Structures are given as C-alpha cells and as structure tokens.
C-alpha cells in the first residue's frame, strides 16, 4: 500500500499503565514499579476510505488503541502519524485542533455517552460550536436537522432528551454527533455490542451507507468476528497488547495462520448446524500484568516449543498476511483453510 493511500499510520505504538502499589508501600515493602503494557509495539496502516478492524478478547488492548488514536491517551512509545503529521509531537492546542476536527469517536454504550441533561440538538451541535464551523443559531439548527435525517431520525427529534430514545436510536444520535464536525476518520469502539441483533443490523447498514456517502475511514474495534467480517476491509487480531496477525478480511477469515486467530474462528458458534464437533482451546487469557514470556499465546498454543517460550515473535509477511508466530516460520504450522463456508461463496481472496 503506497504512502499516499494511508490516512493513519501507527508505528511501534505502545502504552503502559502504572499499576504500582502506592509510593509508601513501595518504599516500605521494597516493591518495584509495576507497569501494565496495554499496547505493545503495535504497527498498522489504515488506508483512506477503508475500514480497519481490531478484534480480540477483553483485555487485549483494542480499546486502548482506539483512545490512543483519537488522543484520549498519550502514547508511551511510538508514533501516530495522521496524514503525514506525527500527532503526539504536536504540543500546542492550536497545532492539534485542525486534526481534532478531522477525527471523531463513537463509543460502545449509548446510555453513557450522551449527556442526559442536554437536548439532542445541543448534543449534536456541540462539535459544530466547538470547532466554530457554522455560526448563527438558524444555520446550526438547520445543520442539526440535516444530520438527524441523515442518521435516520426525524428532524423534530432534536428537541427531545436522550432518555426518550431507545438504545439503537441513541447510537444514531452518537453517530450524528460524530458526523457533525464533518470528520474524515471515525474511531468506533464496539458501536453495536450493546445493541440487539436487529438493531445492530440497522446501525451497521447506516455506517456502511455513511462511509460510502462521505468517503469515511473507520477504525472499528469489536470482539464479534461476524460483525467484523461484515464491515471491514482489513482485520487485525490482538492478543494481550500485541498484534498477532493482520490481513485483508477474506484472507484472514479463509486462511488464518496464527494459532490464536484459528482458535477465535473455531470458537464462533455455528449457525450452519453442521454438527461440527469443536475442540475449544483450554485455558484463559492470562493476567496482562504478568504476561507469559516470549510469545504471549504460548501457554495455550498447541504448537508451542522452547523458542516460543523465550523469544517474542515479530510480524512476518506470509503471502498476503502478516503473522507473528515462530511455528509458522519454522514450518511447524499445518495449513488450514477454514471449512464451513457457505457453498455459494467463491474462493475470494
């Protein structure tokens, strides 16, 4: 992918959280500082106009990445290059502001992310006012009404309060607010996880339509692989703060390489009723404060050997995927083409 196509480039991005005991305890009990590496040297390129998804189980650091990208957290290491500019190096508010306008975030919980005391029109107008994009009450009202219609609500809904809406409608309000500043990049952190399936379909359809209409770029965070398959162009799989594999979605879902990706795909309940016997991988995600040495996945991996226990694998290109796995390099991984695909779908990727 050439540099001009890339909107956001994360390189060796890292974020540590200090989870040490209080200072006095450390002093008296002679304990060291404890750092939790929530994100550990993560590098991805998000191409313009596309959807890049990060998947993983709770605690894998995917939401931390979302917050780093929009600047809610300051990275401990690495860079976030947005359209050629390294964001964390910008110091003054005046430098940052032009970039802030261009990105917005949609949060998971539509009940917590809307101020219950504000009218919907004020919620949506806030970014417009903050960025002074339009001035004059009438012009703003008109813009808000337009946004409400764009997300499938009525323009008259602006005078209502958030509690008058259902979960799905609230998520539409969140989307309208995100669109208000006319951004080009949306970071969506589990935008449909709190919604019922029929509502989820409405929101996903809305997001697809808006992406086409406004040429938006999405960073999409989710734990639901089916949703990710539906909405993404590229998918990255995270495990305990590290990216273990990424590829375009068809390759990733049809020829997964990393044992963790394979395990995730195998764990999805089967709607096809094939009667397939699954062999769920034993064990659970370890405590991220004391992650396993070497490859984080080795205690649960059926292909682990001595090298996996000691040495951190780097992302290596394999066909069209990038995979961080020693077993793959040493040709110890059996090739797997995922079965159970609907018969009417061609080989795709």
């Amino acid at each position, binding site marked *: 992918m050439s540099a001009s196509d890339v909107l956001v480039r994360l390189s060796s991005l890292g974020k540590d959280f200090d989870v040490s005991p209080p200072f006095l305890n450390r002093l008296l009990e002679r304990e060291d500082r404890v750092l939790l590496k929530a994100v550990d040297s993560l590098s991805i390129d998000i191409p313009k106009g596309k959807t890049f998804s990060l998947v993983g189980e709770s605690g894998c650091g995917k939401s931390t990445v979302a917050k780093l990208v929009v600047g809610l957290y300051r990275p401990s290491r690495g860079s976030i290059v947005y359209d050629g500019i390294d964001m964390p190096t910008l110091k003054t508010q005046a430098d940052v502001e032009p970039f802030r306008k261009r990105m917005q975030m949609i949060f998971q919980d539509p009940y917590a992310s809307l101020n219950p005391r504000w009218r919907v029109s004020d919620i949506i107008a806030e970014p417009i006012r903050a960025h002074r994009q339009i001035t004059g009450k009438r012009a703003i009202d008109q813009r808000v009404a337009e946004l409400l219609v764009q997300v499938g609500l009525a323009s008259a809904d602006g005078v209502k309060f958030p509690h008058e809406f259902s979960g799905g409608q609230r998520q539409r309000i969140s989307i309208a607010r995100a669109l208000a500043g006319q951004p080009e990049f949306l970071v969506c952190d589990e935008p449909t996880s709190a919604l019922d399936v029929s509502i989820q379909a*409405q929101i996903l359809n809305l997001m697809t339509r808006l992406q086409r209409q406004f040429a938006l770029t999405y960073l999409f965070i989710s734990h639901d692989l089916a949703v990710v398959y539906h909405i993404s162009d590229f998918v990255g799989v995270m495990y305990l703060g590290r990216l273990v594999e990424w590829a375009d979605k068809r390759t990733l879902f049809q020829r997964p390489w990393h044992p963790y990706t394979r395990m995730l795909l195998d764990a999805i309940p089967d709607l096809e009723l094939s009667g397939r016997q699954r062999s769920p991988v034993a064990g659970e995600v370890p405590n991220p404060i004391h992650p396993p040495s070497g490859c984080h996945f080795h205690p649960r991996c059926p292909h682990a050997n001595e090298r996996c226990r000691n040495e951190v694998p780097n992302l290596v290109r394999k066909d069209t995927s990038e995979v961080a796995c020693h077993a793959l390099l040493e040709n110890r991984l059996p090739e797997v083409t995922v079965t159970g695909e609907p018969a009417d779908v061609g080989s795709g990727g």
Partner: protein
Amino acid sequence: MSEARSNQHLLSVENLRVEFPTRRGTLVAVDRISFHIDEGEVLGVVGESGAGKSLTGAAIIGLLEPPGRVAEGNIVFDGERIDDIGYEKMRRLRGNQIAMIFQDPLTSLNPLFTVGRQLTETIRTHVSIDERKARVRAIELLNEVGIPAADRRVDQYPHEFSGGMRQRVVIALALAVNPRLIIADEPTTALDVSIQAQIITLLKRLCREHGTSVMLITHDMGVIAETADRVAVMYAGRIVEIGPVGDVIKRASHPYTRGLMNSIPVIRQDIEQLVQIDGSMPRLTDIPPGCAFNPRCPKVFETCRTERPELVDVGATKAACWLYDYARRPGAGSTT
C-alpha cells in the same frame, strides 16, 4: 394433561401471564405463553432485550421480583402445579429439582464465603450428609466442571477465580444436588468467545451425562444453534415461533424470526447491506393491538392490526402469524 406418566412433559407452562401493576396501569410483560420441556431436552428461549424471556424463567422458579406476579395460567413440573405452592415448598424445589444459572457469575456467588463453603451449604440444604462428605462432593463437582487443582481451589474466594472459572463454579452449584431442570439465563453472555465455547461444551456434556433438562435463555442465536434441541422465539412477551432448532433457524416461518435470522451477519458471506427490520420492539406501555410485530412486519395485512394470532402448525414448527391461517390471509384460497 396429567394422565399417563410416560408421555408427560417434565415442565409444562400453559397460558402464563406475568403482570406488573404500576401507577399508570398494568404492564403485561409475558402474555399468555405456553410451552413444554421434556426430560433431557434443551429448550432455547431467544429474543431481544425486553421480550420477556428472563421473566418467564423467573416465573417458573418463583423468583419474580414484586410487584411482578403470575396473573394467569399454570406451571406444571413433574405432574404437579408449582405456581401456587407457597414459599417453603418452592424453596425446597429450588436447587433440589430446578436450579438456575444467572448471567453474571460474580453476583450469583457470595464474595464473603469460599467457593467450598457455598457448595457444601447448598449440598447440605438439600441432602442430609455431614460436613466432610459434603466437602468431598464439592471437590468432585469442581473437578467435574473442569476446575484444575480443585482440592486446593475449593478453599478460595470467588474473587480469586477468573470470569470463566466463576461461571464453572456457578454451574457446579447448579448441579450440586442433581436437579432435573436447569434454567440458564444468558449463561455465556458475560464471557469472551473462547471461554463461551468452553462453557457451552461443558453445559452440553453435563446435561447429556446427567440427563438434565435445560431451559436456555439467550439473545445469541449462535449459542442456541449449538446447544438447543428446540427453540422458542419471543417477541414483546409472546412466543411467536417454536419448534426444532434446525427448522426455526433454517426455515423460519414467522416474519420476525426470518428478519432476526437475516439480520445476523455471517462470516464469509459478502453482502453490502444486512437485511434489517426497521423500528424497534415496542415498549410494554404501548404494545400494539393484534400481532405485536405488525408495525414492523413487511407482510402485514388488515387482520394483523386487530386480532392477535395464536400459534398454529406450520410444517415442523408452530408460528403465531395470520399468514398461516389460510382462511384469514388476504387472497384466501390462492396458494401464493
């Protein structure tokens, strides 16, 4: 319905109606539903939030929060009515004959007692054995649900267990006295996918081994597809379709079930837009007359707006939809 014991259902619910009296009138949260569960069978109950599936479970086990109450209908377990038996009798039935697994394993365990104490207490409430034997049984149970080093972990507190392990403990608690029916309310919803797969596999294995019947309440069709024998689809407090899981998932009859199935994204299926059901489920305060789904239904016609459809046989399943009442649907007589 209570003649020959051989063809009797383990649990049968008839015309169950759960109401919540409020200042602004009575809300009907579960509206005249009927279903049954046979010995050793897994019945999935699926629906969106607010469809009344959890309340149905709570009504069966007598745990409806006041002012909620069973206003109509009866619940028969093993040939006896259990909806009007009073607190003490119900308490003895709970845990002994019918057990419940809740969604959040952390809130269903007491944080102040060790896992072992909670297990032995449950066992000794229902079976008269001494403390030591109960402890042995507790360790056995923990082993059975796949907790490693059970003899050591039996003395640990719930906070020392991870989410998946806690849910295993809860399952051990439910199985403690070999109940005949387990009501599992969203048992895997709070868990990650890989852990969810482990818990589903465990539940399936245990129920097969013990011959336990399960009422599995969930919003996740995938979990139902993997686990249930039959499935009941609920919408706005009513059962809209019920039947063998394969028929409901692959050949859904009710427009709601069909819409629900189509709105689930499927891996390796490339489509630009998902099929969506417009609108959302009505609130309990304004359930429309007739079929509750009629404002969102693509096939709605006049009868749907005025009269409530009952469940009728459609192939292998039953669906509550006027489309299948050939005398009532528009163009009656034609076969379209």
